[in-house]
């Protein structure tokens, strides 16, 4: 079963605009990660935010985490055509000695030139 749910499922914007994607999850987490997947390729790690952090930046990426609402957002500023990809949030739930990263269904972002 998948814990994270991204919203929207698909997003289409013009180059230069900002793109915001949201992720909601159900159970307590240790950290939350965002990954990008270009068509036909493997996933690439973008950013990790720990449960005690509220905001994190990396280049044009800004991630927020609200553990009280069990939600996270990924903001891509000044988008480029090359940002076109699927974006997944993944939550790290740990029970005992069992570590597991659970991915959502993803948001398909299309940036039009």
């Amino acid at each position, binding site marked *: 079963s*998948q814990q*994270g749910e991204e919203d929207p499922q698909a997003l289409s914007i013009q180059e230069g605009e900002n793109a915001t994607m949201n992720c909601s999850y159900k159970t307590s987490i*240790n*950290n939350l*990660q965002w*990954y990008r997947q270009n068509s*036909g*390729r*493997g*996933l*690439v*790690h973008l950013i*990790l935010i720990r449960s005690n952090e509220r905001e994190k930046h990396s280049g044009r990426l800004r991630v927020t985490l609200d553990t009280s609402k069990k939600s996270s957002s990924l903001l891509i500023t000044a988008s480029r055509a090359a940002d076109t990809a699927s974006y*997944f949030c*993944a939550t*790290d739930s740990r029970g005992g*000695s*069992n*570590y*597991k*990263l*659970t*991915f*959502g*269904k*993803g948001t398909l972002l299309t940036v039009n030139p």
Partner: protein
Amino acid sequence: EAGVVQSPRYKIIEKKQPVAFWCNPISGHNTLYWYRQNLGQGPELLIRYENEEAVDDSQLPKDRFSAERLKGVDSTLKIQPAELGDSAVYLCASSLSAGLSYEQYFGPGTRLTVT
């Protein structure tokens, strides 16, 4: 530095046939993962290795799926016999360690089509 290598990239087989996927993780990464990704979905973990030990195979359909990681480096995932519902992309990933939630590095995947 070479990334995670997977082969083959594509495989088309008839149902009931066996199939095997191979993965070479990033050098020095102790933890290796196999995921299955269905169309329009996120990856789902099949099995996780710490060195040569399978520490989480709870999601692996053991009646037809098997995996091994000899010598704690390369890994092979096998399906025998394949079913139509096994059509998916099989992703291999590796990380330094699972204990501290290191980021995972993914290979390009093997796209399996079962006809």
